[in-house]
């Protein structure tokens, strides 16, 4: 389960240095109630490749976009 995230600013670091920011979601507030509800509460929670946010809290303190396979925690891309 332990894995490393290759931070573009700091290099490869243990995931312990990062705070998880959840899956990347499209926000579309105030369109209508159902869209708001879906944006705020519902998640894909994908068992597979997921686009997500990580905050390098013990490093450069920048937000990163990460593509990770949630089945085995392989990091596919960090930006």
């Amino acid at each position: 389960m332990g894995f490393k995230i290759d931070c573009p600013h700091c290099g490869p670091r243990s995931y312990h240095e990062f705070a998880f920011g959840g899956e990347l979601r499209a926000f579309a507030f105030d369109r209508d109630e159902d869209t708001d509800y879906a944006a705020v509460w519902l998640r894909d929670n994908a068992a597979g490749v997921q686009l997500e946010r990580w905050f390098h809290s013990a490093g450069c303190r920048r937000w990163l976009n990460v593509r990770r396979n949630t089945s085995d925690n392989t990091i596919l891309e960090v930006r």
Partner: protein
Amino acid sequence: MSGLLRKRVYLRAVPAERSYDVVIIGGGGHGLATAYYLASRFGIRRVGVFERSYIGSGASGRNTTVLRANYKMPESVAFFKQSFDMYRELSTELDYNLLMSRRGLFWLAHSENSLRLQRERALLNQAFGVDTAFIGPAEVKELCPQVDLSAGGKGHPIIGASYHAPGSVIRHDAVVWGYAAAAMRLGVHVHQGAAVTGITIENGRAVGIETSAGRVSAGVVLSATAGYTSAVAKLAGVRLPLMTHPLQAFVTHAYRPILHRIVASSDMLIYVSQTSRGEILIGAEIERYNTYSTRSTYSFLAECASRAIDLLPFTAKLKILRQWSGLCDMSPDYSPLMGPTEVENFLVSAGWGTWGFKAIPASGVGMAELISRGTAPAAIAPFRIDRFKDDRAIPDRSSAGTH
């Protein structure tokens, strides 16, 4: 014949029927309990339970077997009290020894905030007839002399606790097997090694499932798959407010009985109990990121063992036997999600996070009633899936923090 001389066949493999009144996806405690109560209390016996692996291979076999009812929202206290009361009668009802053992459970407070929470918890529990008392450090030491009141002398001593005397442990595998065997005696089919690969939808309603063994039509499809609920719901095109997080635990070798109580600390994020086999069982909080990987980590083991030694110094001498990880489907308010979805005849029993095992009987009987009568009984009605839409969340994080 009775007792030890009786030979019983627990799970006889039967070929899947082409159609069932109710198809349940997931052969864990919740799925099997729902099947059992459908057959025993509501006369619905054409029920098929489909389990991808073997029964109890998921969260039902990975939890830390603690039973308690000391929750902190009125809806939750009532629901978990019902569940606990059902557990007490369950060995008799299922005709299976579940090795339930009453231990008494502490939730230790090391901070003013935690102390306030434990005091409120005790008061609310008492109002619902649940035996939880607010106690001071001296009483903690008296009830459990092994506890180090200074918590390792690191500046966060134990300043109080809530003590839930009925807190118990039970054999989790036995619960799964007991429900499965009792359900099968009533005619329920339990299919192991049968993966569900699709849910058939016609005109907005679920009418069956695709399995590795072929297509099965169904009047009602229920997902009871805990960590994998989002993936199963996706087969029906349903999105849910769930995130799957891993929770790790480990046990030591078996030792003579030394720790009778269950010791938990929500400030230190740890809980410790001794199993009936003698192993000291130690667990903690979920990992903060979502994943479906069940690989264990050394960092967890090291941190958690160090906290256990702070709290219970005798554990420093123990040898670790094994470590494992399970998946928790966490809901936003730390309360379960039970009920219909926007797809007609597709129901979900989910959001069982870190608190699902102790809810099995009440959730099973509640879901069975919902399936047979079409309306949710009062005990589970507040936990409907779309409660976030109209601001009726049941926030109970402080009750879920540890186990």
